[in-house]
């Protein structure tokens, strides 16, 4: 991601005393920090490998059942790829130094990866793959009140949009670049909250208490509004230590990149409505009690 001006990068580099920006491979200065970044990266690698293996095991265990759509498999591994691109490698390194690069990593991690992972229907796959008894416990777990609360669209949207507001309008943004632990927690929150929101709005997995179309529509519109207002606000008020040109590029990326994913979410929301309101029986004349 080209950084229009190195100013922001230099400012942020000046703020963060040491350790960050040097990948685990380069870690010479600040031994504890270098170790922290290395552990965070190792945790990401392990989690990604576990998720990749888990889905493959699920496919293998349920191979006797009806065929599983290939597009879901592709979605899962593309989603993991997006998480990996956001957290490991060159983009992740650039994201610790520049705001625009940070924003592209966050679009991948908080919007695109959750969308792909949710569309892969991992809960449905687990229910097919697990033995009956284990599948029942999983269903019971998903019916817990706590799960029901955090998967409500309003709660999920507040967690997701609220988390972004806190991140960019408080000292959390500079802090996350100074501490590997805070960095990991922020990223975990962005991915999980994004996934919860996507699942609550358009997820194909079974949801016994799915909110009504009206509630989900209102939440999605409110979320898009909050996201775009924050992007415009960031354009004028970049976080501490971010230079002007870098802040403007990052804010515009957040606005237009967010829009692209938001339009996909709107289309998925309405295609769910379209499928459930399908006229039954003979089409053309009155389709029965609609209205």
């Amino acid at each position, binding site marked *: 991601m080209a950084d229009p001006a190195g100013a922001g990068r230099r400012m942020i580099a000046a703020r963060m005393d040491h350790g960050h920006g040097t990948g685990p491979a380069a870690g010479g200065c600040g031994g504890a920090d270098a170790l922290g970044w290395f552990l965070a990266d190792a945790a990401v690698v392990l989690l990604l490998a576990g998720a990749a293996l888990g889905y493959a095991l699920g496919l293998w265990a349920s191979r006797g059942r009806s065929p599983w759509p290939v597009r879901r498999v592709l979605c899962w591994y593309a989603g993991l790829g997006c998480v990996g691109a956001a957290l490991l490698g060159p983009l992740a390194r650039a994201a610790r130094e520049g705001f625009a690069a940070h924003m592209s990593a966050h679009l991948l991690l908080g919007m695109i990866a959750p969308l792909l992972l949710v569309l892969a229907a991992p809960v449905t796959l687990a229910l097919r793959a697990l033995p009956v008894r284990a599948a029942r416990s999983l269903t019971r777990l998903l019916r817990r009140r706590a799960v029901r609360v955090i998967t409500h669209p309003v709660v999920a949207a507040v967690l997701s949009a609220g988390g972004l507001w806190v991140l960019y309008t408080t000292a959390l943004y500079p802090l996350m670049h100074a501490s590997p632990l805070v960095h990991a927690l922020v990223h975990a929150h962005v991915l999980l909250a994004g996934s919860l929101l996507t699942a609550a709005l358009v997820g194909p997995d079974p949801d016994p208490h799915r909110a009504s179309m009206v509630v989900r529509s209102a939440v999605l519109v409110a979320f898009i509004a909050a996201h*775009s207002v924050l992007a*415009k606000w960031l354009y004028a008020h970049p976080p501490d230590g971010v230079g002007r040109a870098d802040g*403007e590029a990052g804010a515009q990326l957040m*606005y237009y990149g967010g829009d692209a994913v938001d339009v996909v979410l*709107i289309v998925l929301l309405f295609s769910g409505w379209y499928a459930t309101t*399908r006229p039954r029986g003979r089409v053309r*004349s009155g389709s029965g009690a609609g*209205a």
Partner: protein
Amino acid sequence: MSSAATGAGGEAGPGVEQRAGDRGSRRAVASGFLFGCGIAASMIDLFVFHLGLQWHHFYDLSTPEVALAADGVFHALGWFITVWGLFLLADVRRRGDVPWRRWTGAVIAGVGAFQLFDGVVNHKVLGIHQIRYHVDLLPYDLAWIGSAALLVLIGTAILWRTRPAPAAG
């Protein structure tokens, strides 16, 4: 209404046809109007005024925070109703024939209605943003509001000419 419509018991009498047609027609008008408002809010502004003419800017520092929030809501609603209108159109189509001229009339009325609302409420009452900056606004406002009113009139005229024949009884 729905119980009366289904009361025919499978045999689609003329009354049922009529009612289904009315519903399809109403839904087509709703679809066109939403789509028209939506493209006026999301696409015309983006492609014509931001990217084409470059009269509008991503953010201008004089924008008050209330206006910024209102702008975000309009932005979100714009995309939402654009997609909503298109799905309603698909729904009309899978249930019967689409009255295309009627739909087009509703789109034109929708574009006009949103531009009228934008020109009067957003530009003049709330002062969220202007059509163009550092120029005398009066001719722009007149052209904007006048063309919006004209579109509403044209759209309404098409809707009037394509109105379904009144139900028999």
